[in-house]
């Protein structure tokens, strides 16, 4: 079965009710009373997360900002690997599925769902454009309470120059804090030489400057290192089937060779400041004038800028014909997503 169906309706944010009521409402709205479906939603990071119990249902409603995008798939066609991080941005989903039994079921067979709020903590990126001796590591500080947990120091390294080998000053990782993000990823090690911080070369910069740069980028830190241990390097020609084979240590490799995007673009949404107006609720500060640059990345959150609205959208309607503001962005989302989705089965946007 191909194609998709789009519905738009509103809910009272303060009284979302129970998951089963919501499930019934979905079946009613789509007129599919006897079809078993999987329900998912996109959270503020653009990740597709499941809704299958009261807890994650309430979580989904409370994070709606104010639009909540819900995806419904027929259970028999469902692709579990669609859930997870960056699912909306990647064409191929190569998740290593860490699954967990879910006992809140009315179905006879066991349904396995994703853990709640599954997030990446680190990744190796840009493997295809970097020399094999280098490694570009991205640490996702947001969403975790773990400290970054590493130290850097001055040192010297040997470079090949036109005048032969030369000793030049460099910056090195000097210590990993046990339990810190850096150590838990296994992607960084003591004595790795730091070459770049978020795309900016560190050569010629002092230890303090590099420290300041790393801290300034700490919410989305991308470090290019020359690992002290070169035995675990990515071997370029073995990169054939998918990106999961790129590195044994890579937990979530990204295959998009989008340098600037990786280094600077995506962080924007992670960096929004918070405003409390008239002692009200804290809110993220929106962008003043949304520009067209961000459509390529779905991690961009869809925001309706009228903060006065409380619940979901005011009315249920097809949104394909809308053209203005954030809604036009929304139109393009399914367009882009559909190519892959059509293979996967029915996905319905509400």
């Amino acid at each position, binding site marked *: 079965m191909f194609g998709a169906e789009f519905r738009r309706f509103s809910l009272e944010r303060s009284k979302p009710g129970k998951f089963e009521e919501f499930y019934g409402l979905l079946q009613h709205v789509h007129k599919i009373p006897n079809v078993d479906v999987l329900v998912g939603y996109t959270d503020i990071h653009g990740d597709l997360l499941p809704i299958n119990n009261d807890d994650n249902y309430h979580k989904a409603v409370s994070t709606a900002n104010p639009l909540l995008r819900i995806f419904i798939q027929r259970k028999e066609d469902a692709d579990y690997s669609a859930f997870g991080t960056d699912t909306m941005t990647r064409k191929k989903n190569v998740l290593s599925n860490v699954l967990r039994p879910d006992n809140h079921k009315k179905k006879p067979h066991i349904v396995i769902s994703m853990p709640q709020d599954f997030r990446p903590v680190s990744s190796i990126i840009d493997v295809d454009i970097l020399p094999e001796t280098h490694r570009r590591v991205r640490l996702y*500080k947001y969403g975790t309470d773990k*400290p*970054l*947990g*590493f*130290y*850097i*120091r*001055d*040192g010297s390294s040997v470079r090949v120059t036109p005048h032969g080998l030369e000793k030049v000053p460099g910056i090195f990782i*000097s*210590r990993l804090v046990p339990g810190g993000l850096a150590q838990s990823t296994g992607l960084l090690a003591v004595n790795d030489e730091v070459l770049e911080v*978020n795309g*900016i070369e560190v050569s010629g*910069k*002092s*230890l*303090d*400057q*590099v*420290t*300041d*740069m*790393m*801290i*300034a*980028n*700490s*919410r989305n*830190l991308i470090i290019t290192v020359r690992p002290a241990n070169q035995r675990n390097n990515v071997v370029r020609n073995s990169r054939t089937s998918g990106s999961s084979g790129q590195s044994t240590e890579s937990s979530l490799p990204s295959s998009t060779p989008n340098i*600037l995007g990786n280094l*600077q673009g995506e962080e924007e949404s*992670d*960096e*929004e*400041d*918070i*405003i*409390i*107006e*008239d*002692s009200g609720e*804290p809110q993220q*500060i*929106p*962008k*003043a*004038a949304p*520009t067209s*640059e961000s459509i390529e990345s779905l991690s961009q959150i869809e925001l309706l*800028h009228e903060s006065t609205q409380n619940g979901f959208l005011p009315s249920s309607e097809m949104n394909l014909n809308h053209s203005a503001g954030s809604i036009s962005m929304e139109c393009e989302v399914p367009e882009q997503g559909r190519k892959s989705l059509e293979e996967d089965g029915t996905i319905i946007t509400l």
Partner: protein
Amino acid sequence: MRRFLRPGHDPVRERLKRDLFQFNKTVEHGFPHQPSALGYSPFLRLMAIGTRSGAIKLYGAPGVEFMGLHEENNTVMQIHFIPDQCQLVTLLDDNSLHLWSLKQQGGASELREEHRFTLKGPPGSPPSATQVTAVLPHSSREVLYLGTESGNIFVVELPSLRVLEGRTISPEAVLQRIPEDNCNRRSCELVEALQEHPKNPDQVLIGYSRGLIVLWDLQNNKATQHFLGSQQLENLYWQRDGSKFISCHYDGSYTQWPVSSDNKQSEPLENTVPYGPFPCKAISKIYWQTTKNGLPYIIFQGGMPRASYGDRHSISVIHGSQQTAFDFTSRVIDFFIIFSSDPAAEFDDPSALVALAEEELVVIDLKSAGWPAVHPPYLASLHCSAITCSHHVSNIPLKLWERIISAGSKQNIHYSSMPWPIDGGTNIAPDPPQRDLLLTGHEDGTVRFWDASGVCLHLLYKLSTVRVFLTDADPNDNMNTLGEDEWPPLRKVLVMELNDEDAEHVVDHAEADLLQDQEGYRWKGHEKLKTRDGPVRFEAGFQPFVLVQCQPPAVVTSLALHSEWKLVAFGTSHGFGLFDHQQKRLVFVKCTLHPSDQLALEGPLSRVKSLKKSLRQSFRRIRRSRVSSRKRRGAAGNASEVQEANAKFDQDALQEMELAPVQRKIEARSAEDSFTGFVRTLYFADTFLRDSSRHCPSLWAGTNGGTVYAFCLRVPPAERRMDEPVRAEQAKEIQLMHRAPVVGILVLDGRSTPLPEPLEVAHDLSKSPDMQGSHQLLVVSEEQFKVFTLPKVSSKLKLKLTALEGCRVRKVTVANFGSCKTDDYSENDLAVLTNLGDIQIISLPFLKLQIRYPCIRKEDVSGIASCVFTKYGQGFYLISPSEFERFSLSTKWLVEPRCIVDMPEVTSNNHVHNKSGTENAARKSRGSGKSPGDCGEEDERKSGRLMEHALLNDEKVLKEIQSTLEGGRGSYAERNSARSPLGHGLSNGGADQPGPAV
């Protein structure tokens, strides 16, 4: 793809940038750091000061200043002007001689180094053979006589600095012509002094260290006369008529000797120990000045009784029965006397004594009774008490300016009315375009008001806050004597009013408890200052009328005053408050502490570890280098075992440090970090805070943790100002996700122009802001610049400085830049100083980097912390505890010395007795006094004006920095300065210059 469009490719903009921006270090204000030599030319009426870092500075009439820097950065030992020339010779401690001249170029004079020269002995001779100890520029202007440690006197040709081999006066030659048996080779070791006969240029007096003095005939190469002193010689001085000379000695005595051609060996006329009979210290320099009334002035340095006053730095003046020892607070480097330079005059008639001490320049009027000091127009000792903060105010209204000057003049009544005696050269710089004030806050609780409009930084007025508080000193004492008393840093808020009358009144005080709602905090710092209850007498000037004290009594970290609304806002490490000084009522306080921030209550700030660590390492490095240099020189007598052990310990510590290199923790900032509540900046603005139809007064505060608070204020209209209370309500709170300290908040009006200062609008000095278009908010943190819309806060633009360049914002100000090409174009930009010492100009409102200049060395922490920008693209920073460097970023508004020194006409071909400089004695000019090609000659060699002193290599400076930091007054201290202290101040009497005690 917009991000690939980098700024700076627009050729029109590039051309405009060249018309707007230009970086110059223009002039150094204040007192030279570590002066080491003094010279004076009575002919040019210019004074020269040399420093230990190799700088020489020339000063004449106010505004006439020249600077030069020796490439070697070695200590300047001696400075001698060439008689009747625009030239001078400097001797450095590496035994090199440098010839400098003042040349005219493009209508102004410039100081340039012409030649350098190091005396070389024959191969194999010891270095002492050519170590120069005395320099005599001969009045013929053709040669220099160089006395050396070996006793040889070399003759060097001018201006080529070439040794005239045949004319060397060797000790052997001298001894041959002295018949005496009691003179041997050793009598002629080390030439201590060389003085030319005031009437007869062919005769030179040579003084050897061991006491032998020889009058040498240059023409016939023979000793005309010799004098045998029994004491070690320090210096010589001719009497004006050449019939007598005076010698001063190591034992504190001076001796007069007659000069006559008939007897070969003379006995002294008179031998005196002025401070005897007990052993005295050496008299290192002496002047004998004749007067009409017959009573000479005898002026000498040192000679105090060893036991009782051996530690004093004194210059004594004896005139008949009057005798005064001027006691200086620091070591006397050198001094000279200004006297009649008219060669026809019969007497010296001294008019002033100019003494250069290590920390101050003192000029004594010798013509007025009581010998009062003269108020110097420049070389002010900025550092009488350490500077804790500074603030610059542009465009002072004339009325206010005059009132400040008149209040200041009342503090200076004890100064002499003599015009400044060093008045050579002509200031041809255009008059400063406006009246600017530089305010400096000092450790002793005083605020000094400096005229910063022109080249001369001149003290206008001093205000002391001490009297408001209970101290050990009586309040109605003369505050001038307070001097070196330790005083806690500024940590009180005073609102002051300028009052032209003396007044005695009680100062109201109020207390602001910043921790009202917080439980369980315990303040471990010092207690709040006790205030004085009774009436206190204040002199005319700024007088305090209300005092606000913060509780807990932490350092005030930011201050803002709105003189139209009559409101003052203050912030500490705990929170901030708003005070209505019209009604003398506290409007509100807000605590900014994070619940976990216990450290803030521990008292005076403890500093970040890394800084301490790096300072400690610097010390170790210095100590190590000192140890090794001491060893090189070969134990100078007291290389005891303790020192050895210390050295070893240092070495070990150093090695340990090298084994465990410095490392830096990489961690995101969090709300739980220390000092997040520290209020870094406060700002008043009349803007659209709540809705876009009505604007209202507002107060903005930024903290160390990246939080911005905005309060909506309701200020009653003027007619009901006393009746209704000022109200405040929190309207917004912005948390920057990167949590870097907020260092600047600014509102841009509808034309994207920063809101003007209220005082400027009130005085019609500035256009009123545009309230039609929508306003924008600029928040500057140490890491980023961000523009938000108002009243609905949404982010519009940002510039991430740290993420891209690894530098952080230290200082930021809006500056107005005018084009040097057209009068009608000017624009506002941000002037930013980073922690690397770079200055960047960033455009408004688009936040594009325009240009970047290296300005301060990044190691110079105190220099960066002291930097203050003006509103017209200039700035000041401390290059030493006593000197401000002034720089300019603007092509249009530039204050720099521009002056001309003309060769005065030499009136007589027989003018007598002009003495200059240190060793330079009487001389006699022959010929017309004009030599070809001295002025106006093109010379391509450029003398650098850059005066970067190697401060951090200097242990003393490092110690000062460290003590500043540990005292909790680091880079935050300068935030103490009031934003707009005009019209408000506190009075205090007394003069500034710590004149010599008599």
